C-alpha cells in the first residue's frame, strides 16, 4: 500500500492557551514494502506525524492518502475499519490493556475487524510462539517483562496482516537483545510481506536498517530529509 501525507500540519494549545505548532507542511510518501525511519530531536513532531498518518488524530491541515483513498477526509466511522485492517501500531509504552491476558491483548486486534476469536486464535498463538511469548499467553501485562510486553504488542499489531505498520520508538524501553528482535521483525515485514513500515526512532542502528530516513526539526522536514521518493 502506498502511503502519502500531503502538507500535513498540526497545532496544539500550550498550557497558556497559545497555539503551539508541532508539525508544518510535511509531505511524506512511503511506497509499498518500504521501511522508512523518522528521526529527530524530542519535540520535533515525530510522534505527531505518526499519529496523523495512522489516523489516531485528525490533521489541522493537509491530507493522508492510502493508495487512491484520502483516508484523512473519511468520516470518523469510516476511519475505524481502516485503522483496524490497514494499520498496525507498535508504541513505545506498549499500550497493552492491563485487565486482559497477553493472548487476549493479541486477539483484541481481531475483535474489531469482525474476525471470529476461534478463527484468529491459531494465528495469534503461532505469532506468540514465533516471538517467544507463547508460554506467557495467560499472564497479565504486569506479570510480563518490558521485552515480553513489547513482543505481545507487536503480535497484536501484525495479527491482521496490515499493509502499514507504524512503530513509535518501539525499542525505547528495551535492552539490546529485545530491541534487535523487534527491529528484525519489522524489517521482515517489509521484505516478506510487502508491508510498509514507518519507524520513529532515536537509535542510529535502528535507522540504519531502514530504506531511508526522514529527519524532522521543529515540525518540518529537513531539506534533503527524504520526504518523498
Amino acid at each position, binding site marked *: 500500500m502506498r502511503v502519502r501525507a500531503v502538507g500535513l500540519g498540526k497545532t496544539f494549545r500550550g498550557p497558556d492557551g497559545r497555539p503551539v505548532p508541532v508539525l508544518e507542511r510535511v509531505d511524506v510518501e512511503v511506497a509499498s514494502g518500504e521501511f522508512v525511519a523518522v528521526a529527530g530531536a524530542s519535540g520535533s513532531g515525530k510522534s505527531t506525524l505518526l499519529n496523523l498518518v495512522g489516523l*489516531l*488524530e485528525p490533521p489541522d491541515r493537509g491530507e493522508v492518502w492510502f493508495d487512491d483513498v484520502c483516508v484523512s477526509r473519511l468520516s470518523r466511522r469510516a476511519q*475505524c475499519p481502516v*485503522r483496524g485492517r490497514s494499520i498496525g501500531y507498535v508504541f513505545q509504552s506498549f499500550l497493552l*490493556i492491563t*485487565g486482559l491476558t497477553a493472548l487476549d491483548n493479541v486477539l483484541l*486486534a481481531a475483535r*474489531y475487524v469482525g474476525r471470529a476469536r476461534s478463527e484468529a486464535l491459531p494465528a495469534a498463538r503461532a505469532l506468540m510462539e514465533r516471538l517467544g511469548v507463547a508460554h506467557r499467553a495467560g499472564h*497479565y501485562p504486569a506479570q510480563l517483562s518490558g521485552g515480553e510486553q513489547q513482543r505481545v504488542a507487536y503480535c*497484536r499489531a501484525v495479527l491482521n496482516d496490515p499493509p502499514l505498520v507504524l512503530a513509535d520508538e518501539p525499542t525505547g524501553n528495551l535492552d539490546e537483545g529485545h530491541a534487535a528482535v523487534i527491529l528484525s521483525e519489522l524489517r521482515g515485514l517489509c521484505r516478506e510481506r510487502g508491508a510498509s513500515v514507518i519507524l520513529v526512532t532515536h537509535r542510529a542502528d535502528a535507522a540504519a536498517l531502514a530504506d531511508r530516513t526522514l529527519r524532522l526539526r521543529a515540525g518540518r522536514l529537513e531539506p534533503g530529509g527524504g520526504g518523498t521518493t
Partner: protein
Amino acid sequence: MVGGLRRLLPRNYLFTILGIGVGVAGLVALGAMAERITAFIDGGDRFVLGQISVAGEGMGMGTGFTAGGLLREEKIEQIARVPGVAAVQAQVMLPLNPTTSQFLTLTQELILGIDPTAPMPNRQLREMPVERGRFLRAGDRGVAVLGADFASSRHLTVGQTIELGAGRRFEVVGVLDKTLTAPDRFAIVPLEDARDLWLRRDPLLVQVFAGGRGSMSRRDLNTGAAVAWADGVDGDELARRIQATVPGVNVTIPGELSRVLRQSTAFFSALLFGIGVLGLVIGGASLSNTVTAAVFERIRDFGIKRALGATDVQLLREILTEALAVSISGGVIGVVLALVIGFLVDARVLREGQQLFLFSPRLLLFALVFSTILGALAAAYATLRIVRLSPAEAIRRGA
C-alpha cells in the same frame, strides 16, 4: 458462570463493584426504613378503617386509644340494636405501664381484653394471625396471646408466663405473627381477666363498686367496644347513626379517625418522603459517580481499542455490557449487604420490641432495576464523552 464473569469484567472492576454495592446498600437500607414506617402507618390506617370504636363519654382512667370513659353493658346492647350493626365486641384496653402517657397508644404496649366467643369485629383483621400456639378460646382464664414485638422483646414463647400488672401472672398460649402495626405490641387476654386487672389497678373504680352502686356490674366494666357493620353498610354512616341514636357514647368515625391518624402521621410521611429522596440521591449519586469514574479511569484502554479499529457502537456496546455486569453485581452485593446490616441492627433493637427495617420484594427489585438502569446511563454518558476524543487524545489523557 464465574469464568464468564471474569472474561466479561476486567480485573480492576472489583473496587467499582464494591463501591456500587455500598451505594446500593445505603439506598436499600434507607428504603427499608421508609418501608417500615409506611407499613406502620398503613397498618394503623387499615385497622381503624376496619371497625367502629365506641367508648363511654368523658375521659376514663386507664382507658386505651378510644380515650373514652366507662361503656356500660346497656349501651353495648343499644348499639347492637342499631340497624346495620353486625356485631359488637366489648373490650377493655389498658396501658401495660399505667404511668406512661395514654396518648401514644399506637406505639404503647397495651393489654387488650376481649370476649373470645364474640367474632372479631375488624373487617381488615377477621382473625388474628397466630404464629405460634393458639388464639384465645371460650372459657380461657389466666392466659395471654402476645403480639410479635411484645413477645420478642421479652424473649417469651408459648408455655412461659408473664406478669401483666397487679401481681397477676398469665400463661402465654400464643404469639401473633408480625402485623407491623398496633397489635404487635398487644397482650391479648380474656375480657374477664382484663376487668380484674382494671379493678386492681384503679382505686377509684374499686370505690365505685364498694359504694354499692347497685346498677353497676362487672359486665359494665368496658373501656369501649369494637363494632362490626353488616355487608353493604357504610361504616362512616353507621358510626354517625350510632352517635345519633345511642346517647352518652363516644363514637369514632372510621373515615375521620383515618384522616386524623393521617394528619398526625403527616410528619412521618414527610420524613418518609425525605428518606426516600435522600436514599435515591445518595445511592444514585454514589452509583453513577462510581460507574462514570470507572469508565473514565479506563479512557486509555478505550483509546487503544479505537486505535485497533473499534467503532463508537462497538465501544458503547462493550462498555454498556461491562457497566451492566458491574451494576448488577454491585446491586446484588448492595442488597445482600443491606440485608445483613438490617438483620444485625434489627436483631439488636428487637430486644426493645422494635423493628427498623422492612425489606419488601418491591424495594429489593427497585434497587436492582434502579442500579442497573443508572449504571447503564452513567456508562453511556461517559462513553459518549470518550468517543468524541481522538484515539491519540484518549491515550494521552489516560496515560
